């Protein structure tokens, strides 16, 4: 027997059976519709979060180490951290003097402050004190004007760089270079505007900032704060060696005896990534469980309808068997019917989730439904079609022709 003729016939039968019971088929497919909508939307959302993360993580810099008082995502008890001494400029200078495997080193301190221009005022602008090397260390580009010079940095000149949020808040279309703004109650001359950086994970803006010389920062806002030392490694591939060198220099600078524990953290992008991956894989697992559950419920619904459909068409099965349909033929007929219902449900699910993904893209976070999610959605629908159709189809296939013909 020709299998293609059989399958083609089965599609026609499935089409007739489904359109003959429109409402029932729609209700049966509803569970799959919801399941596929959930699966694809979740994948799309994760895709969006990943993209946001990838673009944000760039701001941290893969080849930059951050020597700080604490480790990011430290897992020790609070006791270990409580009595750590601040990191100060002497540590920075010691490190800068001895390090071999770094192309640039810069210290930063920062705090949120109110910034004013004339009668305009911006709250909680992040004010960073650093040196001219900061530009090189974290790879900042200047949009207009220039970065402050080493002379300005060392001399503690009242000059500043501003982020695009500050520029837009104060100057609109005016040229900001040379304008005087107030940080706290102190005046600074704007010498440059930093290129737009975007936001960190969509949570806070990296452009809402003012950068001033660190010596000026200390003079105006005090020295009682811990410094973060940013170190750009010579070679990304030797980051581990640079990290070891930084550690040993820092241990000398902080006079830690041999065998003593580090009382500082050397942080890097990878730590961020690890934590992020842990978090998202948890979200993925939970999402998978929830969407998997809805698909199973949907599948049970379809299996139920298929059992009813087989029962109702017992006579038809008897007739088909009497005139020569084999078990396989009947099996294929009902399997295809269930796959068609599930695939239909899956396609409706995709038709619902695709516009929603566009809405998410436009208003929540930039994302897109990748093609593989569409393919996956259809594949899952087909899988559940076979799964839910199998037992009803098997039951139909093994019906006794004599009894089926007698069935009314």
């Amino acid at each position, binding site marked *: 027997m*020709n299998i293609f003729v059989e399958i083609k016939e089965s599609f026609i039968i499935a089409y007739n059976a489904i359109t003959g019971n429109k409402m029932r088929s729609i209700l049966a497919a509803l569970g799959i519709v919801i399941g596929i909508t959930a699966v694809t939307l979740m994948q799309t959302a994760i895709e969006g979060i990943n993209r946001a993360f990838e673009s944000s993580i760039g701001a941290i810099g893969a080849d930059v180490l951050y020597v700080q008082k604490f480790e990011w995502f430290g897992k020790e008890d609070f006791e270990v951290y409580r009595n750590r001494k601040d990191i100060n400029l002497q540590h920075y200078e010691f490190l800068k003097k001895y390090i071999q495997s770094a192309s640039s080193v810069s210290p930063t301190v920062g705090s949120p402050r109110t910034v004013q221009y004339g009668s305009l005022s911006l709250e909680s602008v992040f004010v960073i004190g650093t040196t001219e090397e900061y530009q090189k260390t974290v790879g900042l580009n200047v949009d207009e004007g220039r970065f402050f010079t080493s002379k300005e940095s060392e001399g503690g000149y009242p000059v500043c760089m501003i982020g695009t949020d500050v520029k837009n808040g104060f100057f609109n279309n005016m040229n900001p270079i040379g304008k005087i703004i107030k940080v706290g109650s102190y005046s600074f001359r704007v010498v440059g505007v930093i290129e737009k950086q975007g936001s960190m994970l969509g949570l806070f803006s990296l452009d809402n900032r003012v950068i001033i010389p660190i010596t000026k920062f200390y003079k105006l806002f005090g020295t009682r704060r811990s410094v973060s030392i940013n170190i750009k490694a010579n070679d990304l591939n030797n980051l581990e060696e640079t990290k070891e060198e930084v550690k040993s220099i820092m241990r000398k600078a902080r006079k830690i005896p041999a065998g003593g524990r580090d009382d500082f953290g050397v942080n890097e992008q990878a730590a961020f990534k690890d934590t992020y991956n842990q978090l998202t894989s948890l979200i993925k697992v939970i999402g998978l469980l929830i969407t998997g559950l809805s698909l199973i419920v949907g599948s049970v619904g379809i299996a139920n309808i298929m059992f009813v459909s087989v029962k109702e068409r017992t006579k038809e099965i008897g007739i088909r068997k009497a*005139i020569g349909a084999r078990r*396989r033929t009947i099996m294929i007929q009902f399997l295809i019917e269930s796959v068609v219902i599930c695939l239909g449900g899956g396609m409706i699910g995709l038709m619902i989730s695709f516009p929603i993904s566009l809405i998410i893209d436009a208003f929540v976070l930039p994302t897109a439904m990748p093609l593989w999610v569409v393919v996956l959605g259809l594949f899952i629908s087909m899988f559940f079609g076979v799964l839910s159709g199998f037992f009803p189809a098997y039951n139909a296939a093994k019906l006794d022709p004599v009894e089926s013909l007698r069935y009314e």
Partner: protein
Amino acid sequence: MSTIIDIKNITKLYEMGTEKLYALKGVDVVIERNEYVAIMGPSGSGKSTLMNIIGCLDTPTSGDYVLNGKDVHEMDDDELAEIRNKEIGFVFQTFNLLPRSNALHNVELPLIYSGLSKTARIKRAEESLANVGLADRMKHKPNELSGGQRQRVAVARALVNNPSIILADEPTGNLDTKTGEEIMALFAELNKKGNTIILVTHEEDIAKHANRIIKIRDGMIESDTYQTARH
């Protein structure tokens, strides 16, 4: 004449719980090609069971059955399905057409299960419908046809795959006398053209159309007589 059905000592046992019931208690039948046989008997006599076994819808508990040279009593489900498809044309009392398919598709169905190409199927189904006088009703669905026309569609379906035998189970049971006579005339014509026909009925009037009458009672053959058919 060549033998088309050779049944030897067939029994059929039904077990219902602890109760054992023999529907057939050892039946021997030999039917030659181009015979027109009526199987008669009251309800419960075992004639339906015999018909189901002849039609390969059911298998005997013991005994031999050779259909058109093929030993069928030990075949599995799928092999029996193929035999039903190629060797047997069923005509039922209740027509048993697929209600949602038109006449042409109903007649085409056995050819689908034989795996014929679409064009060959359509051609043969159309010929078969024309043979029973329904050339102008091919696109009609069963509920748009009269009882007699439905039974003609069923006959066309039974004939479409050139089977060895046509097995008709009370073919006039759901028809009025006049239409019933028309169907019987159609069978007589088919028999004249060389088809082997086995008719299951309990009506003497209908059985008169056959050349041979086999009477069944209590699972055994009561009589097997030849007669001149009255058409």
